[in-house]
């Protein structure tokens, strides 16, 4: 007789990066300049240190056994801020009262400055081929055939991750997701899968679905 339950162990943090950023520096200077400016980067560096982000993510944002690598950030700025406001893993939430959007943007700029942009960002993906790979490589097993997500793995359709962020994560995931090394999935395959995932529109808001208002 088979015994088949590992769900309790496949929890919460399969794909979503647990960005632990705690801001306890109300005096940090609000920035009005470009998020990429030197001043912004410098301010972000100070916030990163004073808030203790390094304690879990490492002083270069390289990741530790407590939290994933976040340099360069795997998400675009807007979803990064959204995640920090309402994280899904162990990371505590960072409310506006603790850190403004601009302060978070400064930290983001600092993290982007720590690592050069990956060359894989220039890869062009083939969505049709990516759809086939999504099935044959078994991505659907945890994320669903349309990347809609499940209790054991998050939604990845129309992902907010950059291609570089996706590739970095699947090569060395920090949660329960198994690693997909380059021996089994090439960067080009991942670019194709990424292109497929980008073909999905964002889900309709729950408020527009009567069955979800019961």
């Amino acid at each position, binding site marked *: 007789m*088979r*015994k*088949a339950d590992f769900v309790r162990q496949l929890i919460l943090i399969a794909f979503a990066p647990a960005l632990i950023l705690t801001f306890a520096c109300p005096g940090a200077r609000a920035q009005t300049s470009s998020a990429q400016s030197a001043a912004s980067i410098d301010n972000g560096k100070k916030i990163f240190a004073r808030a203790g982000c390094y304690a879990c993510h490492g002083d270069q944002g390289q990741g530790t056994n407590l939290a994933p690598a976040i340099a360069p950030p795997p998400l675009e700025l807007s979803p990064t801020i959204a995640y920090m406001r309402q994280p899904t893993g162990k990371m505590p939430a960072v409310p506006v009262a603790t850190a403004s959007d601009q302060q978070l943007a400064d930290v983001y700029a600092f993290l982007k400055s720590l690592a050069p942009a990956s060359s894989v960002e220039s890869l062009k993906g083939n969505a049709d081929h990516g759809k086939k790979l999504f099935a044959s490589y078994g991505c659907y097993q*945890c994320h669903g055939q349309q990347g*809609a997500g499940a209790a054991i793995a998050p939604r990845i359709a129309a992902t907010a991750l950059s291609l570089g962020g996706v590739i970095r994560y699947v090569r060395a995931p920090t949660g329960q997701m198994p690693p997909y090394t380059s021996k089994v999935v090439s960067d080009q395959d991942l670019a194709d899968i990424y292109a497929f995932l980008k073909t999905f529109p964002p889900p309709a808001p729950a408020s527009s679905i009567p069955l979800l208002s019961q």
Partner: protein
Amino acid sequence: MRKSRKDSVNRRDFLKAAATGTAAAAIAATPAAAAAAPPPRITAPPPLLKLADAAPATAEVLTVDRPGSDFMVDVLKSLDFEYLCANPGNSFRSLHESLINYGGNSRPEFITCCHEESSVAMGHGYAKIEGKPLLVCVHGTVGLQHASMAIYDAFCDRVPVYIILGNFSDAAVRFGPVDWTHAAQDPAAMIRDYTKWDDNPVSLQAFAESAVRAYKIATTPPMMPVALVAGHELQEDPVPDGANVSVPKLTMTSPPVGDSGAVAEAARLLVAAENPVLVTDRVARTPAGLARMIELAELLQAPVIDRNGRMNFPTRHPLNHTERAGATIAGADVIAGLELTDFWSTVNSVRGQVNPTWRPSTKPGAKLISVTANDLFQKSNYQDFQRYTPVDLAIAADGEATLPSLIEAVRHQITDDRKRAFADRGAKHAAAHEQAMEAAREAAASGWDASLISTARMSAEIWAQIKNEDWSLVSNCQFQSRWPLRLWDFNKHYHYIGAEGGYGVGYGAPAAVGAALANRKHGRLTVSIQNDGDLMFAPGVLWTAAHSRIPILIVMHNNRAYHQELMQIQIMANQHQRGITRAGIGNLLDDPAIDFAKLAQSMGVHGEGPISDPKELGPAIRRAIEVVKSGHPALVDVLTQPR
């Protein structure tokens, strides 16, 4: 000439006597023999066969007026079993006959099962709804081997199942090769590691006393299956003339309650805490348990994380924080585990790569309290007791039975200042709960119109059809990403019965039918979301549901795979870096695809599907519910996303 065994020598006694050289004397002791023969002169024990041949032809026994199994029925009736679930077996044929004729096939009523695993799992599901065991009879050998996985599930789930094992105990009276093959010296040995108690009585009075004792043991927390051997000869031999046999009185044992000092200390810790958290798993066994859990949580304004081994806490209660368990645990300064099976994984998180790594989920200094009857009784071999957790206060007691005294102790220690603080944190918890519910609804919208149908959509479609009924969900939601628990309004004790306990696949379908059997007399609409792989273990339970007119709505979560294992092989393929496209081998159930609607129809169950268009699902469920309301089972096959 035929002779009734009421007037004859008991064959077993005769053969026993032969072995000691007194058989002839025993024969002579009967009135007929005494008249026909002079007193015997025994000089030495003759061969057994010789003695048997020597029995006069006129003494051949062909009928029995009052078999021992009639008395067994008297005993079993005193325990008030509603039903007997069994696949027939000749090692308990006499008991079977006594139950249906002498006992009138009423309390217990015989429910014909097509597999012993189904018999036990039906008892498992039934007990979680009804709060008491039903009776299961199995062949003590091959039948028990079939039943063993289901017994293990019930054991791990701390559920009482009462099992009678038929056995050909006396080798001298076995009829032939099958009786020998189906006999065991110690039938219960193979399940002793995962039952609470068993016995092999050799007299009817011993059977009676052990039967009542077994019931008490099974139903005293921690509850577990028990097994009682009913020897073939004990069943079939007549009750001896003048035998002084009686049915002992059953006095239920009160469940163990926590020590008053320890309970007071637990209350002190909870009242003083800034962020106490209650974690429940199997604490609410009855409606009263559910009510007490609400009372305790509201008194403390403490969030509850429900591991859902039972229906412990309403899903839409503002203090239900199951959806945000990680953050809630991370912020807690006191965590009380109430009949919490796996405390370790509650306060630690694992990263399950090549070498699993654990780290605490709690903040330093968080105090841990456990209240569980598992501290009173553990077995050694099977490791369902989970990893050892060093808690700060361990109360060895039944959780539900301890709740009243814990509530009273908490109430006694709350000051006005604490009441104000509790009110403040209650408002924050309510807001966080609503936010988590909204996040769940937004997540459910993802892939809403997908075909194959998402498990969130399937759950929402079912809910739309049952929400105004008196419903009872009797399947484990885990494989549907817990969507029913995230979207439906669970607030009664029979709204959910938890999972299999031992994670043994094959529990789902029969346990659901057993739970539906219990729900039938209450007029509840029983719903089961049924996994395809699970149903294929013993689909004959569909026939049992049809045959016994057990109304149940079965909605198939048909992802055409042993999907949990598919993911496991994918993990191995990734770790081993040998290609990741062949994980389906050994795991998929798709070539040919199983037509579950036809499978159901073949056994007299209403069947619809397969349905892959989400727009067709609601109407199909409505049609099926009409069938269920007419007193019959119905199945809707839904082609779904994996999870």
